[in-house]
């Protein structure tokens, strides 16, 4: 029997070591990706990258100014589509959503969360690009906005539910109407939490490329018009990465560095807020 127990102990130790090893293995691609992106990208970033337009093939230099501006326009558009639906939807779920209707909305929100982003792009193509007969920034922004909804909605709901009942009751007891209680007391105290949800959603769509392929389309020139095709940072990284030109590859690395740093900052900041909020909500 002694032998069997030794075997059990041995298996135990090995399996535990394996779980630790798998955590280590998962770190490998993370560090490799960061190392490769930053080591290629940092050198290629300079002031021109932010202020210059892309140069034609064969000329060195140039930058991503149009793509950065385009991404900002698209994100602003996405917010104007996604935030009202997400935030008001979250308010509805937290405040009015009865069991049945609430479940339905939550289910659809989960469905949307699992929907591939390229499918959302096809949807915006069908409702916006096709009738207008034109690829446009508006269609791209709408696609990103729809993708933002589930994240914003579920954080808003969670954060509102975390606001203590006593706060509402106090305000209502003072004679405030419900909507005023909501807008100036409850929403205000959940503000930081809702903002983290918004930041997370922005971080998610800032790197989205697939839904823009046939909505915003991309643009080699400077354009901020909502009716015209517009450039976007991830889209331009893609175009430059699959091109056969060495110069363009360098630009793609620089773009990737900017994008990854931006997305990470948004993520880290919002996670930090979220953790504080959740910790405070629990205690």
């Amino acid at each position, binding site marked *: 029997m002694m032998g069997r127990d030794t075997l*059990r102990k041995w*298996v*135990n130790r090995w399996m*535990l070591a394996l*779980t*630790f*090893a*798998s*955590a280590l*293995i*998962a*770190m490998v*691609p*993370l560090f490799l*990706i960061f190392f*490769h992106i930053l080591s290629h990208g940092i050198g290629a970033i300079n002031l021109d990258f932010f202020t210059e337009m892309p140069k034609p093939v064969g000329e060195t230099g140039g930058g991503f100014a149009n793509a950065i501006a385009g991404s900002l326009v698209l994100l602003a558009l996405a917010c104007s589509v996604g935030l009202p*639906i997400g935030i*008001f*939807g979250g308010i*509805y*779920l937290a*405040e*009015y959503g009865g069991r049945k209707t609430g479940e*339905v909305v939550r*289910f*659809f929100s*989960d*469905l949307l*969360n*699992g929907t*591939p*982003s*390229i*499918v959302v792009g*096809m*949807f915006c193509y069908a*409702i916006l690009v096709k009738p207008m007969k034109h*690829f446009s920034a508006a269609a791209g922004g709408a696609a990103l906005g*729809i993708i933002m*909804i589930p994240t914003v*909605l579920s954080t808003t709901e969670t954060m509102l539910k975390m606001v203590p009942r006593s706060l509402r009751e106090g305000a209502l007891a003072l004679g405030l*109407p*419900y*909507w005023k209680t909501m*807008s100036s007391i409850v929403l205000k105290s959940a503000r930081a939490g809702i903002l983290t949800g918004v930041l997370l959603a922005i*971080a998610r769509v800032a*790197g*989205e490329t*697939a839904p823009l*392929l046939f909505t915003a389309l991309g643009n080699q020139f400077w354009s901020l018009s909502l009716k015209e095709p517009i450039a976007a940072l*991830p889209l331009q*990284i*893609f175009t430059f*990465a*699959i091109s056969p030109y060495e110069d363009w*590859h360098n630009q793609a690395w620089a773009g*990737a560095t900017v994008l*990854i740093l931006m*997305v*990470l900052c948004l993520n880290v900041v919002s996670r930090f807020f979220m953790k504080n909020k959740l910790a405070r909500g629990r205690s």
Partner: protein
Amino acid sequence: MKGDRIFEQASRMFAILLVVIVASIGFLLLKESLPAIRKFGWQFPFSSIWDPVAEVFGAWPFLYGTIVSSILALVIALPLSLGIAIFLAELAPPYLKAPVAFLTELLAAIPSVIYGLWGLFFLVPWLRTSVEPFLIKHFGFLPFFKGPPYGIGMLAAGLILAIMILPIISSISREVLQAVPNHQREAALALGATRWEATRMAVLRYGKAGLLGAVFLGLGRALGETMAVTMLIGNRPEVSLSLLAPGHTMASVIANEFAEASGPMHLSALMGVGLALFGTTMVVNAGARFLVWKVSGGRGEVRE
């Protein structure tokens, strides 16, 4: 009061708008793909001829590519993410728990196009020069490792997908494991089980349904992943048993051909592919929600 009613109506309207949007995604995809479905009928999902010039469309190569690349990703990612989840939920000392969890979740924050860029310039050359020649030399007798080492192909796509779905599966599995009540572990340990035996018999078995849900969620992500796969899979509508051969997935064909579709029938066929993709991810995700929901006792605490 009037203000109250307006406020309630407004929030209800936006909530309903969300439902309308999701429903019309499905409806519009169906409507736009009807011409192709009418013309090709049952041949559409099962024929492997995709010829935009002759206007003959069969989506089998894309269905096949999506299934194979996703399964490959699961096979690679599942043991690793389960290992991470067990490590984080059962073993890790507190000072390691937070940073390891944070770092794995960072993997989920990296945009898909950046995975594609990295894959194209580092993963693919590495596969071409080291991994694939090795596989061909030692396992070339298997049908999975036949053909020249392109680097680009099903294997590259599966690998990058594995990295991308790893954080999802591991973080949800970890939550599932953490939801397993402590008396399960204590009972097993009290009966003389080793740590691993307690985990295997009392914890993993208890959380089985939730773990399956986590796998489904990972699968759902892998099925619809577009950019990284498009950049690495080689984009050739062929069905090949070899993992080294280039392929195509539902998402990658849409990404490649949609903006430059050659005519209404081509567009309609692509919409049909999109409909299939939407339907598949919907079923997979609904299954995942159901399983995870069952574990969390209907409290809906475990969410992405």
